[in-house]
Structures are given as structure tokens and as C-alpha cells.
């Protein structure tokens, strides 16, 4: 038993899920595993959701009003989760603060803390401008109550803090909010792209890695980020609207006389349909951009055939063929593309296609991160990654299936709570 423990202690990080074939250097393992796949995936969702919301705020696409507000709140819920995989991945998570304390700016990762916080403040302040009126109204409503329970008292205090003392909701003040919101959204787009583009830079700048090193990497990452963000927004929006419709219908049957408060079912359905159709067009444009860049990269490598092509060809065309060409390009890109351009597109079909797109982007992250480590620095051997499913210890939990699931579930849990404070589906005159 003690020996076993000692052996476990001697296990090198990465050893548990790596198998080596032919000649692989002794220190090589798949050090960057599922959490580093999750990291660009999650930041991509954040950036994409934000860009979608900006379409309304900056470019004034009026029809996107509802989905824009939803995706803004959702991107705020996703924000902490972009950091989570990194913290789960670190061998010394408690020292994560060092990135902010002694940033070494020649490293792509060092900007993380700063860009992340900047971006976080931009999203937060944009949300503040959008929801200030709601905060103030809530405060007034709570303050007007004669008797308050303990919880209501707490809520009153909380919302008072949230208003930051700005209680003026005259049309002039709200107009200022609206202007500020527009400016924040405009600043937010480049910052969101930077947040994600530099995630691509983290990989693209590793000169030791033949698969990662390409200047196209940040651009590819941004495009696929927007694709995945929009896809997730469509999917969640459709699901949430369906739930709301169901509730409304139930309420209507319960109280046939007057469905006070609940939106009219038919109107909701039509509004959702229009928004989804419009947004899915954007999804298509960005998909075309992302795939063209990826294919361009692949063609270029094959055509120039530099030293690394021999081993890359074996990885791309043989060992990872299923993952790249069938799962990523086939099921994740081509199939949803066809589904969306075929005539008679419905909301349900678009949602299904979005689901596949999300899977495709996830596979793209997987194939980049894991695929980049599937061959040895010696160019004479291969490594295989085996995702730990049943966790044996904290490491195989963090860097295993359950760690990844934890990261996936968290934004939805966060969204649930944030939605209590800043309702994403507020029915009122909005900006």
C-alpha cells in the first residue's frame, strides 16, 4: 500500500494519459490535455457571444434586440469559466495570481490576467448601463414596501450597491446610458477579439511545435470563436425560448382569462424565428471564413512540404484522420453547413446545426491542442492521448472527463444566478 502510494507520488504529471510509440524523448508527455482544449473553447464562446451582442448595440441591428441582451448576459456568465480550465490545469493553482503580479510580457500567457480583467470590466460596465434602470426600479420597488423580510432587506442593499448611487432614470440619463453602452460595446469587440486572438497566439507562437506554429492561428481562432459563440447563443436561446413558451402555455391553460405577464405564445415564436434566422446567417459567414483559413493552412503545409510535413502528414492524414476529417470537418462543419443552406430552414434544424457546429469547434480545439502533441519533437515517434474517465486522484479528475464536464456546466449554473439579478428576458423598453 505504502509502495503504491509512493509510486503514485512518483507519477509524472502527464504520464497517466500518455502512451508513446516509436522514438519519443523521455520527457515528452501530453502535458496540455483536456483543460487546455476547454480553455480556447470557452474563451471562444465568451468572445463569440459578446460579438453577437455587439451586433445589436454597435451596428444597431434592431431585430437582434432580445438575443443581444441574452448573449451579453450569457457572455458574462461564461467569463469566469474562461479562466477556470487554466486554473484547473495549473500544477500550482494557488500561484495563479503571479500572472497578474509579475507579468512577463514576452509571454503570450502573461497578458491573460490583464486582458481578462479589462474585458471583464468592459462587459460588466456594459451590463451596468443596460441594467441600471432595472436596478433603480428594483430598489424603488423594494424601498416602497412597507414590510420587508430579511432577504428582501438584503436584496435592497445589494441592488443599492449595484446602482452605484446613480438613481437618476430620467430619459436624459437613460440616453446617456445608451450612448455609453454603445461605446463600451464598440471597445469590447476588439478586446474580445484580442482575448481570443491571443489564445491563438499562445499556440501559434510556439516555434517548437510544428503543427501549431503558423501566423494564421490567431485569426483561425477568432473566426472559430465567433462561430462557436454564435452557435451556443442560438442553441441556448432556442432552448430557453422553448421553455418560456412551454411555461406561458401552461399558464394560459391554468388561467385562460388573462395571461398577465407571460408573453403571447405566437408572438414569441415568430420573434424567435426571425432572430434565429438572421443570426444563423452570421454564423454561416463566419464559418466560411474559419474553414477557408483552416483549409488554407493545411494546403500550404502540404504544398511547401517543409521538414515537419512528413510527420504532420502521418498525424493528419493517417492517425488523426477520423478526428479531423470525419468528426471535425465532416460532422462538425460540412453537415451543419448543408443543413443551414438547404431551403426551408426551420428553427429546430438551425438549433440542431448549431449543436453540430459546437461539436465541430470543440473537435477543432481538440485536434489543435492534442494533435499538436501527438508527435514527438524528434519527428520519429508518436504520442497518444487517453482521456481519463474514472478519476483515480485529483489530477485525473481535473484533467479528465469530469473536470471538463465541470467546466461545461458552470456557465449555465452561473447564468441561472446572474439571470436573477439581471434578467436576460426583461420585457420593457430597452436600449
Amino acid at each position, binding site marked *: 500500500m505504502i509502495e503504491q502510494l509512493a509510486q503514485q507520488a512518483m507519477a509524472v504529471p502527464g504520464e497517466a494519459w500518455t502512451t508513446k510509440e516509436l522514438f519519443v524523448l523521455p520527457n515528452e508527455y501530453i502535458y496540455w490535455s483536456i483543460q487546455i482544449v476547454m480553455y480556447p473553447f470557452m474563451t471562444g464562446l465568451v468572445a463569440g457571444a459578446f460579438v453577437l451582442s455587439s451586433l445589436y448595440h454597435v451596428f444597431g441591428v434592431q431585430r437582434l434586440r432580445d438575443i443581444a441582451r441574452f448573449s451579453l448576459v450569457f457572455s458574462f456568465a461564461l467569463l469566469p469559466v474562461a479562466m477556470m480550465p487554466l486554473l484547473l490545469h495549473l500544477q500550482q493553482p494557488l500561484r495563479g495570481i503571479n500572472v497578474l*503580479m509579475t507579468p*512577463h510580457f514576452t509571454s503570450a500567457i502573461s497578458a491573460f490576467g490583464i486582458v481578462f480583467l479589462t474585458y471583464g470590466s468592459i462587459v460588466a460596465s456594459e451590463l451596468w448601463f443596460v441594467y441600471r434602470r432595472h436596478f433603480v426600479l428594483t430598489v424603488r420597488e423594494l424601498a416602497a414596501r412597507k414590510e420587508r423580510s430579511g432577504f428582501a432587506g438584503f436584496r435592497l442593499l445589494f441592488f443599492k450597491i449595484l446602482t452605484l448611487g*446613480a438613481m437618476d432614470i430620467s430619459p436624459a440619463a437613460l440616453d446617456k*446610458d445608451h450612448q*455609453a453602452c454603445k461605446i463600451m460595446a464598440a471597445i469590447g469587440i476588439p478586446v474580445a477579439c484580442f482575448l481570443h486572438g491571443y489564445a491563438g497566439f499562445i499556440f501559434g507562437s510556439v516555434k517548437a511545435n510544428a503543427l501549431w506554429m503558423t501566423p494564421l492561428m490567431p485569426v483561425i481562432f477568432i473566426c472559430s470563436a465567433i462561430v462557436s459563440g454564435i452557435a451556443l447563443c442560438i442553441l441556448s436561446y432556442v432552448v430557453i425560448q422553448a421553455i418560456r413558451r412551454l411555461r406561458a402555455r401552461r399558464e394560459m391553460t391554468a388561467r385562460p382569462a388573462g395571461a398577465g405577464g407571460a408573453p403571447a405564445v405566437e408572438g414569441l415564436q415568430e420573434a424567435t424565428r426571425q432572430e434565429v434566422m438572421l443570426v444563423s446567417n452570421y454564423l454561416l459567414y463566419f464559418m466560411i471564413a474559419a474553414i477557408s483559413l483552416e483549409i488554407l493552412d493545411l494546403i500550404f503545409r502540404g504544398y511547401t512540404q517543409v521538414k515537419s510535413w512528413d510527420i504532420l502528414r502521418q498525424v493528419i492524414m493517417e492517425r488523426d484522420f477520423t478526428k479531423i476529417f470525419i468528426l471535425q470537418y465532416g460532422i462538425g462543419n460540412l453537415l451543419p453547413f448543408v443543413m443551414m443552406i438547404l431551403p426551408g430552414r426551420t428553427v429546430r434544424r438551425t438549433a440542431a446545426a448549431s449543436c453540430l457546429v459546437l461539436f465541430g469547434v470543440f473537435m477543432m480545439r481538440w485536434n489543435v491542442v492534442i494533435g499538436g502533441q501527438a508527435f514527438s519533437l524528434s519527428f520519429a515517434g508518436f504520442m497518444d492521448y487517453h482521456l481519463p474517465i474514472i478519476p483515480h486522484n485529483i489530477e485525473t479528475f481535473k484533467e479528465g472527463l469530469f473536470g471538463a464536464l465541470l467546466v461545461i456546466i458552470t456557465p449555465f449554473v452561473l447564468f441561472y444566478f446572474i439571470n436573477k439579478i439581471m434578467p436576460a428576458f426583461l420585457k420593457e423598453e430597452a436600449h
Partner: protein
Amino acid sequence: MKNHVWRPLSVALALVAAILLFRYFYVPKDFGSGKYGFMYSYHRQADEEQWKNMPVRYQNTGGQQMHESCRECHAEEVAGRTKELHGIIACEDCHGPARNHPDDPETLPVDRGRDLCLRCHTSLSYITSDRKRIPGIDAKEHNPGSECVECHNPHNPRLEDMQR
């Protein structure tokens, strides 16, 4: 401030100030760049001292100081070594790092296993390397199961001097 629009900014500035204040106390004062500039040598200077103070285990019984420090007590073994054969191998290669021997540890291990000898004496027909000059055996055929030291004297492996 007159305009409420700036309030989030003041919150953000307060946050930055808090981080900078925390940073002031958190970061060691000797953090800085060295000769190779910010790109390659940004670090906590005291760390170099920490590496310098790592304990020395191998007490330099190889190379040109060959066996000097061992001779004081183990003169017989050192004298018995053939200069051109195993005399080139540092005592600590086979007996392990001396650390503070004879105080700690009091005795060094004597490894009698075949694996130790097979490091060099597995027959490998590599004519383009110096390995070719070392006599080699096929471990599966050359007296399997017995220890090399039963027949060979590791300090003086000369076959002529071998005691049968």
C-alpha cells in the same frame, strides 16, 4: 462626479489600485532583469542563491581527481585498480554518491547485480562508436543467473589476473 456614466470607471480604477497595492506587498523586492534582458532573464534574484545552496552529493571521485578522496581510507582498493581498465570509472558510479560518507551515510552500497556491469558489457556491435572497444557478452548466454563478481574482480577486471 456630475455624470453618472463615469461611475463604473471609478470602480475599475479602484480595482486597479487595489491590485497594485496588493502587488506592492506580494512581489519580492529583488524581482528584476539580468544580463540577458527582460525577455530572457526576468526573475527573482534570490533564486540563484537557492540553487547555489543545493546540497552536493557526488564528492568528485571521477575525472582528474580520480579516487583521491577515497584513497585515504580505501587505499588497498584504490591501489588495486587497473589504471587503463576500470580505473577510469569513478568510485561513486558503482558505489553511489558519497554524500558525507563516512559520517552520513556510514557505509556505501556494494552493488553486486549483473545490471551494473551490463551497462557497458552488453555486447553491442557498434563499430562506429567507442563501444566497440569494450569487451561485451550476451547476458542470456554468459553464465545467466550468476553474479559477475563471482568470477570477475570489478576493481581489476584483467582476465590474466582472474582467480579461477
